[in-house]
């Protein structure tokens, strides 16, 4: 866990004091909204449909219990007692009042947190694999380099007014749990001849024009990474289009100029700026790495875990779906589902936050993670403690055994909150979850990722959902398009649009037709939805989705 230095603390204090004064000047009329808006966005404050929204960064998704407790306190004191965890590992408060926001930022600052650059055309919160530091398949922990990138990008004078927002994600394993190929820059830690370095992928992104990122460099040495990143963003800053908002992301810059041209420009820029990086960043990285030292794992009998699995069917079901292999013997990674059937994906009440914080403190080496799939992770829990952890989670409405299943849905806030949305996402997610829960089909269907966005900007990652749903406004009525076969992992793939959209009433039966078709079509129960889709293609699923068309064509 990174601990702020005196420099970090002083910087944040000054920044918060500046914003406090800016809010005061807006309220007393010294600043117009046009003047104030870029200032509030730089500090994570949006004005949404019903109220302001404060987006707080959770860098690389890592929290300790004191930070989670503070998020709960903020929810109670200045919001409506809950928070919404997002696909970029942030937390959003949907109901703050303008006058309270400076106090909220000070409260965050007290636990080394902030909302800087969670909006605006800057380098945004750096995200990472939510199993970082715990996953058995990891080459190295991605969080130290993510923290270095956070420090480098925060208030970086050259990159405060980029052509458009800029998102960086880091993975420390070859299995991609951070959707790195759908980011402006995706970094994968790799090992080459015993040396740790980085594969650099650029130009990925979802939104209006979805693109899978392209490899810029296969291997960049650790000491060369920051200058390489600076060169990339610098080239984009000059070359990226500012004439058209919809063509301003680096994915379009790469697409229009070609990866070879971009590489030549980045190489040239890199050559120019490399001498300015004298190794200070590597000294800082060493200090950061020490902060992320591996916890002192305990050794204990796993007997209580095996006993619970044998005697408690609910615990067995939960441990089948919500645990992931840990690198340390006797340990497991616990995914806490924020997707109880019928609840809002990614929402946690303040009391739930406190319970998760308490469990992290007591059983989890004081660590929590937020996943881009809008769940909370306890990365280091000894198996002997799992029955106690599960009992506490279950009592708090956090024991849903559905990780990776049909009701573990990503959904953006949609038109229930977002000023940009064209349709609602949350009620669709709620209905799909309750519908398949009632059918008792969830475990039979197996691994299936549904991702829902309420507009073309794709915060809900619908392009990389096995079933992706995009909510649109068609002549004043909510309409939902379906995409199939998307994949956000190392085999990243943009889904294919299935055909005409469905009304809000029709979308749940439509999803059911796809799922039923899969159950009929799969070669055996071990063939997942995505595997079946890759084997068979769109056609049989499309036939199930649009039965009337088939009938009229026959």
């Amino acid at each position, binding site marked *: 866990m990174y601990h702020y230095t005196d420099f970090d603390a002083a910087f944040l204090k000054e920044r918060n004091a500046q914003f406090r004064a800016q809010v005061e000047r807006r309220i007393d009329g010294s600043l117009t*909204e046009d003047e104030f808006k870029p200032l509030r966005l730089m500090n994570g404050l949006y*004005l949404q449909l*019903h109220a302001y929204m404060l987006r707080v960064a959770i860098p690389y998704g890592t929290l300790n219990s004191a930070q989670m407790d503070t998020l709960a306190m903020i929810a109670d004191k200045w919001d409506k007692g809950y928070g919404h965890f997002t696909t970029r590992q942030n937390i959003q408060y949907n109901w703050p009042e*303008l006058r309270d926001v400076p106090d909220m930022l000070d409260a965050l600052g007290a636990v080394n947190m902030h909302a800087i650059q969670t909006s605006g055309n800057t380098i945004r919160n750096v995200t990472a694999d939510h199993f970082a530091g715990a996953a058995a398949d990891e080459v190295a922990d991605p969080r130290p380099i993510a923290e270095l990138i956070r420090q480098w990008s925060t208030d970086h004078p050259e990159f405060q007014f980029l052509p458009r927002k800029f998102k960086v994600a880091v993975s420390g394993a070859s299995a991609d749990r951070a959707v790195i190929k759908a980011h402006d820059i995706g970094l994968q830690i790799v090992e080459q001849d015993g040396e740790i370095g980085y594969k650099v992928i650029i130009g990925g992104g979802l939104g209006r024009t979805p693109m899978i990122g392209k490899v810029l460099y296969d291997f960049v040495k650790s000491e060369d990474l920051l200058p390489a990143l600076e060169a990339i963003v610098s080239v984009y800053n000059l070359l990226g289009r500012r004439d058209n908002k919809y063509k301003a992301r680096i994915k379009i810059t790469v697409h229009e100029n070609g990866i070879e041209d971009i590489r030549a420009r980045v190489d040239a820029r890199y050559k120019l700026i490399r001498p300015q990086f004298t190794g200070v960043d590597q000294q800082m990285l060493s200090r950061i790495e020490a902060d992320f030292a591996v916890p002192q794992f305990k050794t204990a009998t796993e007997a209580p875990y095996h006993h619970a699995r044998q005697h408690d069917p609910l615990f067995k079901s939960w441990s089948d779906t919500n645990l992931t292999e840990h690198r340390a013997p006797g340990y497991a990674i616990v995914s806490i589902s924020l997707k109880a059937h019928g609840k809002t994906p990614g929402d946690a009440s303040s009391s739930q936050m406190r319970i998760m914080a308490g469990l992290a403190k007591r059983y989890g080496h004081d660590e929590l993670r937020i996943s881009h799939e809008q769940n909370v992770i306890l990365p280091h829990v000894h198996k002997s403690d799992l029955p106690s952890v599960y009992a506490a989670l279950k009592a708090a409405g956090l024991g849903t055994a559905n990780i990776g299943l049909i009701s573990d849905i990503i959904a953006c806030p949609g038109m*229930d*909150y977002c000023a940009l949305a064209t349709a609602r996402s*949350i009620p669709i997610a709620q209905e799909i979850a309750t519908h398949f829960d009632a059918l008792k089909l969830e475990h039979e269907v197996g691994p299936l990722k549904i991702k829902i966005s309420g507009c073309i900007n794709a915060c809900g990652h619908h392009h990389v959902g096995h079933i992706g749903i995009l909510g649109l406004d068609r002549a004043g009525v909510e309409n939902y398009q379906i995409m199939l076969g998307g994949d956000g992992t190392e085999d990243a793939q943009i889904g294919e649009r299935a055909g005409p959209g469905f009304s809000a009433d029709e979308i749940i039966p439509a999803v059911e037709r796809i799922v039923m078709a899969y159950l009929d079509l799969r070669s055996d129960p071990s063939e997942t939805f995505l595997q079946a889709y890759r084997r068979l293609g769109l056609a049989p699923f499309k036939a199930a989705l649009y039965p009337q068309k088939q009938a009229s064509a026959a």
Partner: protein
Amino acid sequence: MSKPFTPSVITANALLEGDVIYQTPFGWTRALEEAEVLLDEAHADLRMIEASAQAGHVVGVYLAEVALDGAIPRPIHFREDFRATGPSNYAHGKQERAAQEHI
């Protein structure tokens, strides 16, 4: 011939709370039913200028089309319906206040 003017209200968000507000002949209200309905374009343009001049208290002023239920304005587009009500996943926002006032 230009499209006939659809009856509209002037709406915005309150600067301090962010809450949805509507212009009335005497100021602003939090309730759509109390909004001033504008029936012709020239009058709407004039009222928009007046509303926009109050940038010290309100943010993001625009005209929203309404249907008339007698003299009472109702939202036409579902976005305006949500703005006038609140989110669908919790009874927060205007619906929360309406429920409290009912009690």
